[in-house]
C-alpha cells in the first residue's frame, strides 16, 4: 500500500468546532455528569458522532459508524438514568469496538475481504456485556486484518492514520480503537492484544491501553487470531477510565473455558494514593540497542517520577527476552493457521472459484480473501505444525515459553510491577516497515513476552519525542494484579499532565 501524502493536523482546522466539548471528557467525568444529570447520553453520543463526522475522513478510525444504533442506545441509556434504576458505570458512555468483536446484527469484518459481508446472528460476550451495561456503540474500529500487524497498515478495508500526525501509523493491530480514543471520537474503546496490539497503538496514539491477564476477559465473540495469547482490553484517555472499561467486561464467562473464575475487584477504587512500598522492577533487557533516545529519555524520566512518588526502583532481569519474538511467531502463527481454516467459503463470507469445483473454491476463496500478511502467517504456522517439523518448531516454542514465564516469576520475587518502554520507537511513517515483515515483527519486541506469560500489561502516555509523537510507558503486573497497574498508573497520571495533551486535530 502506498502511503498517502502526509497531511498536517492543521488541515482539519477549517471545519467548524464541536461546540459541546463533551467528546473531550474522560469516562469518569462523563459518568459523573450523567449520574448528576448534568448531561445526557444522547448529547455525549452526538458530540462523538459529530467529531467522527468531522475528522474520520482524515483519520479513518472506523470501518462502520453505527450512528442509528448509537442514538437508539443513548436514548435507552437516558431512560435508564432517568428511571434511576440499573445504572452501571458505563451506562450512556459512547464507546467503539475493534471490528473483531462479534456484534449481533452489526457487520463484523476483521478488516478482511474474506468477511466483508459478515453480519453475525449471535452476540459476543464483550458486546453483550456492554449492551447490558447500557454503553453506546458508536462504531466498529479498523485494525490490521485478523489482528495481524503492528501498524494497522494490513487492513484490507481502510486506512487509519495517527491523529497526532496523519503521516504516521497509529500502531496495530488495534489501530482504529486507539486512534478513535486519541481523536476523541469515542470516550473509550476496546481492542485485543495478542503480542502488543493494544499497548503499542496506545503508545503510538498517546492514550492508555491495557491488556489484562489472559483469561480475565472472555474471548467468546472475539474472532480468534492466536487463542492462547489473545486478550481483550480497553483504551481510554485516563487510567480511571480504563479501569471502568475493564470492570465492565471482566469476569468469568461460562462460554469461554479459559476465562478465569475469580471475582472482579472494583478497579476504580483505591486509586490516587502514593507509591510508598511499591517496588518497580526495571528489566535491563528492555533498555536495548535500537531504543530511540527520546523514548529512553522519557521513560527514564517517568521512572524518576515514580521514585519521587515513593516507589523503589529495582533492577530485574528477564534473560530470555531475546527469544520472545521467535517464540511468539511460532505459537501465534501455528494457532492462527488452524483458527483461520474456517474461512473456506462454505458457511459465510467470501466465496470465489466455485465454478471450478470444490478444491478451487477453497484455494481461490482463501487466496483472494486473505491479505499478504495473513497468508504469510498461515503459511508459517502451517509449516511449523506440519509432519516432521512440529518438535523443532512448535514444541520447542512451547518450551521456550515456559522459560519466558519463569523469567517473570523470578523477577516478581523482587518487585511488584515491571516498568519499561512500550515500543522501542514512537510511531513510524506509513510504508516505513511494511516492506520487511521481520522488521515489523521486531516492533513488538517489548510487548510480546507479556502475552507469552499471560500477564497484565498497560501502556500510558509519558511524554513526546522531538517530532511531537507520543511515548508510552509500559507497566507489567503479576497475574490478576491489574489493580497494581492502575494504582501506579493513576499516581503517575495525577502527578503529570501528558494525558491532558490532545492532538491539534481534535475540536476544542
Amino acid at each position: 500500500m502506498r502511503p498517502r501524502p502526509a497531511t498536517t493536523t492543521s488541515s482539519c482546522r477549517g471545519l467548524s468546532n464541536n461546540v459541546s466539548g463533551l467528546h473531550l471528557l474522560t469516562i469518569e467525568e462523563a459518568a459523573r455528569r450523567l449520574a448528576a444529570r448534568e448531561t445526557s447520553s444522547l448529547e455525549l453520543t452526538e458530540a462523538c458522532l459529530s467529531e467522527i463526522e468531522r475528522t474520520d475522513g482524515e483519520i479513518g478510525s472506523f470501518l462502520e459508524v453505527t450512528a442509528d444504533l448509537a442514538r437508539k442506545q443513548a436514548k435507552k441509556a437516558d431512560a435508564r438514568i432517568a428511571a434511576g434504576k440499573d445504572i452501571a458505570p458505563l451506562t450512556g458512555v459512547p464507546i467503539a469496538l475493534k471490528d473483531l468483536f462479534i456484534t449481533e446484527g452489526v457487520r463484523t469484518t476483521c478488516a478482511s475481504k474474506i468477511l466483508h459481508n459478515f453480519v453475525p446472528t449471535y452476540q459476543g460476550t464483550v458486546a453483550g456485556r456492554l449492551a447490558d451495561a447500557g454503553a453506546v456503540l458508536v462504531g466498529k474500529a479498523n485494525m490490521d486484518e485478523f489482528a495481524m500487524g503492528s501498524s494497522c497498515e494490513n487492513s484490507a478495508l481502510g486506512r487509519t492514520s495517527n491523529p497526532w500526525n496523519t503521516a504516521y501509523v497509529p500502531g496495530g493491530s488495534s489501530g482504529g480503537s486507539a486512534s478513535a480514543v486519541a481523536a476523541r471520537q469515542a470516550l473509550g474503546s476496546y481492542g485485543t492484544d495478542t503480542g502488543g496490539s493494544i499497548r503499542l497503538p496506545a503508545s503510538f496514539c498517546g492514550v492508555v491501553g491495557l491488556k489484562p491477564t489472559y483469561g480475565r476477559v472472555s474471548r467468546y465473540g472475539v474472532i480468534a487470531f492466536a487463542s492462547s495469547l489473545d486478550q481483550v482490553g480497553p483504551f481510554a484517555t485516563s487510567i480511571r477510565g480504563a479501569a471502568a472499561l475493564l470492570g465492565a467486561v471482566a469476569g468469568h464467562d461460562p462460554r469461554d473455558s479459559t476465562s478465569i473464575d475469580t471475582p472482579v475487584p472494583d478497579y476504580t477504587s483505591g486509586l490516587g494514593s502514593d507509591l510508598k512500598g511499591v517496588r518497580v522492577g526495571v528489566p535491563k533487557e528492555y533498555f536495548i540497542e535500537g531504543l530511540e533516545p527520546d523514548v529512553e529519555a522519557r521513560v527514564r524520566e517517568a521512572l524518576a517520577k515514580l521514585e519521587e512518588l515513593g516507589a523503589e526502583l529495582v533492577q530485574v532481569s528477564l534473560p530470555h527476552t531475546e527469544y520472545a519474538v521467535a517464540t511468539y511467531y511460532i505459537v501465534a502463527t501455528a494457532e492462527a493457521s488452524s483458527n483461520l481454516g474456517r474461512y473456506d467459503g462454505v458457511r459465510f463470507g467470501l466465496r470465489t472459484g466455485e465454478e471450478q469445483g470444490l478444491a478451487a473454491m477453497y484455494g481461490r476463496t482463501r487466496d483472494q480473501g486473505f491479505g499478504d500478511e495473513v497468508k504469510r502467517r498461515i503459511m508459517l504456522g502451517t509449516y511449523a505444525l506440519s509432519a516432521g517439523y512440529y518438535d523443532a518448531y512448535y514444541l520447542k516454542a512451547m518450551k521456550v515459553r515456559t522459560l519466558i514465564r519463569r523469567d517473570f516469576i523470578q523477577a516478581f520475587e523482587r518487585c511488584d510491577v515491571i516498568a519499561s518502554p512500550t515500543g522501542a520507537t514512537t510511531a513510524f511513517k506509513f510504508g516505513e516497515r511494511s516492506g520487511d515483515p521481520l522488521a515489523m515483527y521486531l516492533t513488538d519486541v517489548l510487548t510480546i513476552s507479556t502475552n507469552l506469560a499471560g500477564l497484565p500489561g498497560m501502556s500510558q502516555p509519558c511524554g513526546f519525542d522531538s517530532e511531537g509523537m507520543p511515548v508510552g510507558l509500559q507497566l507489567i503486573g503479576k497475574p490478576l494484579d491489574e489493580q497494581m497497574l492502575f494504582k501506579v498508573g493513576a499516581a503517575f497520571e495525577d502527578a503529570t499532565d501528558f494525558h491532558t495533551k490532545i492532538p491539534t486535530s481534535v475540536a476544542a
Partner: protein
Amino acid sequence: MKLTHDDVRKVARLARLELEDTEIESLSADLSAILGYIEKLAELGTDNVEPTASVVTMQAALRADAVTNTRNPEKTVANAPATRNHYFVVPRIIE
C-alpha cells in the same frame, strides 16, 4: 532454513491457498528469512523443560448436559453464499 518454491507449494496445498507464482516467489524469500531468525531458538537447551500450551492453570468448569439452544436453522445459514432448504450448498464433493 531455506524454503524452496516446492516447499512453499506443498505448505500452500496443506493450507488450501491457491497462490500466484509471484506470491510463491516472495513467500519463499520471506519465510526463509523468518525461519532463519527463528533458528535462534535452537541455541537454547530445553531438554528438561515442560512445554507451556496454556498459561491458565485452573481446572475447566464443565457444562451441564442440557439442550439450551433453540432450533433456528435460518440463523445458521443466514450468511451462507449458497443454501437450499437450510442445507449449505458446495460444489460436489468427490470421494
